């Protein structure tokens, strides 16, 4: 389940709790206690989520002074919402400073609200894992982009909608005195008294208004945070040796991307060749699937497939002329294993005995066609990241002397094979330059096949740089200040995509710092 699924579960739980609490009194003090604890957990979870999505590192819920120290300026209503989220549970926190009591989820309202709180915390865990924590770099490209603020307004709009729903529930619980402890409250009395006091305090704050304005400031339905899946494991290549479904294929692609982001400095020429070969095989399969699942003109599709394939083939052949200092038997990684498994899975599904299987066998219904279109589109949209990150890794390998070219050749009589001596490849070596150029081309923009499938390239380094650049420039002008103070979806989008901003070329140096130790050694003369 991804973050979007979790947040939808939270929304569904809140909706159930709101609806059921209309007429249904608490079954007993245990349900009251379950609702009280779930309410506190919900506010805490939403506070953490807002902090994460604003770019604050995982940790305690932010206080007002922390908000002021935050590196990017937030619109005032967002800062206010964040600090008031903490206020919403301050009495409960004071009454139970160490930990909340453990209450089994009981009663329909109690269960619904507990489900919602669990879902919010599960979403937070997923987001935190992508963001990497206080002392770690984000382990995924999506984490890099989102933690830098990519799609921040849209992401936080989702959180704000949930905050608004909890505020609504507070109003209902207060008016119906739902949480007031009765004679039989027993051990739950201190908890219920504290939470009741918090609920009575909520109308004194403007949390609901601020949440409403934050929710209007973005479009939650296109929030990039929704697409975050569990962070793929990259340390064990064998984990990716087998792919059995489209979902696993996309996860394997993400594992390859994450491995390149974290360990791209370990890449070898052999791995670039193997990964490019897998990408070439994938490209043929993706083109074939789109031919049977979209209305794209056949001629155009063939042309695009061959063009992309030609570039991957060229990369494969150029990489095959190079070597690295690693034994052939050890020359594999999560990158090569995962991409090889995806290519193998596509091949197993779509080809048989050297030909394409009839489309009726794998795409007989509209539902199957849509699933295939989505799957291959997602695979295609991830290939540019693979190319771009391989290029960066390859440059590191060349600078550190781990890229070799053919030196002297030992001829073997009239044979066509030769045994070369491998020497360090210079920066000016033609095959290295050609390979770099090919990977640059393949890593630029979105894959044309993904475009035909209607799938966008996932956010990554470029979005991170753009988000940071935009954040530095806000607020910049009176109209931007006005837009920040009185947000509307239109204003928010205008600020983000102001003229001439998003189109600027990405600075390589700014991108490089997001990547694991790919920082190039200082060069003389600089």
């Amino acid at each position, binding site marked *: 389940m991804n973050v979007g699924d979790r947040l939808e579960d939270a929304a569904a739980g809140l909706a159930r709790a709101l609806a059921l609490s209309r007429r249904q009194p608490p079954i007993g003090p245990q349900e009251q206690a379950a609702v009280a604890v779930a309410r506190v957990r919900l506010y805490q979870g939403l506070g953490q989520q807002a902090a994460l999505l604003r770019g604050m590192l995982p940790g305690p819920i932010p206080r007002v002074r922390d908000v002021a120290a935050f590196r990017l300026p937030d619109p005032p209503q967002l800062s206010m919402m964040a600090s008031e989220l903490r206020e919403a549970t301050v009495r409960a926190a004071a009454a139970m400073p160490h930990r909340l009591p453990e209450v089994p989820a009981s009663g329909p309202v109690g269960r619904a609200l507990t489900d919602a709180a669990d879902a919010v915390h599960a979403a937070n865990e997923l987001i935190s894992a992508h963001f990497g924590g206080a002392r770690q770099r984000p382990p995924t490209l999506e984490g890099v982009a989102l933690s830098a603020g990519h799609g921040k307004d849209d992401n936080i709009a989702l959180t704000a909608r949930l905050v608004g729903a909890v505020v609504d529930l507070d109003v209902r619980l207060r008016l119906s005195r739902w949480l007031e402890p009765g004679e039989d409250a027993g051990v739950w009395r201190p908890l219920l008294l504290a939470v009741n006091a918090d609920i009575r305090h909520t109308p004194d704050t403007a949390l609901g208004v601020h949440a409403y304005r934050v929710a209007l400031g973005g479009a939650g339905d296109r929030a990039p945070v929704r697409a975050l899946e569990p962070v793929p494991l990259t340390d064990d290549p064998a984990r990716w040796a087998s792919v059995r479904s489209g979902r696993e294929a996309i996860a394997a692609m993400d594992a390859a991307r994450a491995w390149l982001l974290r360990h791209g400095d370990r890449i070898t020429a*052999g791995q670039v*060749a*193997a990964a490019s*070969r*897998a990408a*070439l*095989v994938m490209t*043929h399969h993706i083109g*074939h699937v789109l031919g049977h699942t979209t209305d794209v003109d056949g001629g155009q599709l*063939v042309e695009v497939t*061959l063009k992309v*394939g*030609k570039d991957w*083939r060229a990369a*494969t*052949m150029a990489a*095959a*002329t190079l*070597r690295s200092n690693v*034994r*052939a*038997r050890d020359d594999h990684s999560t990158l090569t294993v995962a991409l090889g498994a995806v*290519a193998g899975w596509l*091949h197993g599904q779509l*080809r048989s*005995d*050297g030909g394409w299987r009839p489309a009726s066998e794998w795409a007989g219904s509209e539902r199957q066609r849509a699933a295939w279109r989505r799957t291959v589109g997602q695979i295609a949209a991830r290939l540019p990241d693979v190319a771009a990150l391989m290029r960066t890794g390859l440059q590191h390998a060349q600078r550190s002397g781990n890229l070799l070219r*053919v030196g002297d050749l030992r001829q*073997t009589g*009239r*044979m*066509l*094979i*030769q*045994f*070369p001596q491998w020497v360090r490849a210079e920066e000016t070596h033609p095959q290295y330059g050609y390979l770099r150029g090919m990977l640059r081309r393949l890593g630029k923009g979105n894959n044309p096949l993904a475009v035909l499938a209607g799938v966008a390239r996932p956010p990554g380094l470029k979005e991170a740089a753009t988000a940071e650049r935009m954040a530095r420039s806000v607020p910049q002008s009176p109209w931007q200040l006005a837009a920040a103070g009185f947000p509307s979806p239109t204003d928010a989008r205008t600020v983000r995509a102001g003229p001439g901003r998003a189109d600027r070329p990405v600075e390589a140096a700014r991108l490089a710092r997001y990547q694991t130790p790919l920082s190039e050694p200082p060069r003389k003369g600089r």
Partner: protein
Amino acid sequence: MADMSSYISLLKDAKRDLAGDFAPDGMLARQALLLAERTAAVADSCPPGQAAGWDMFGAYLADAVAELEADLDDPAVLTQEVDPAGSDADELREEAAGLARWLADLYASAAAGEAGSGWRRLVWAAVARRLDDAAAELS
């Protein structure tokens, strides 16, 4: 240096040379594998409908070469002077598929035989499987 006037004749020669004395890790076998792998470069210039088959043929051959050479100390390369471009497409396809099938049979026989260590024979069996897959892509 061999006669490089025709790539197709090189494929035929490779097949004929192997018929006499086949050593799975020997020079002639490795040359034949590399020659077959290089044939896939024709995907750049072949009719659009054949590119997928050639690329997959090349991918399987590359796997076969990698499998065979993983434990060998002296990885070999094929001279840059041989190039399949300009060959008759149909004949090239037939010869490449034929060579792959022929090699697959030889490696499979070696794997089933008594010569070489058990581990090495396991490698030859894997090479034979890749070659079978490669030949199927062009059939």
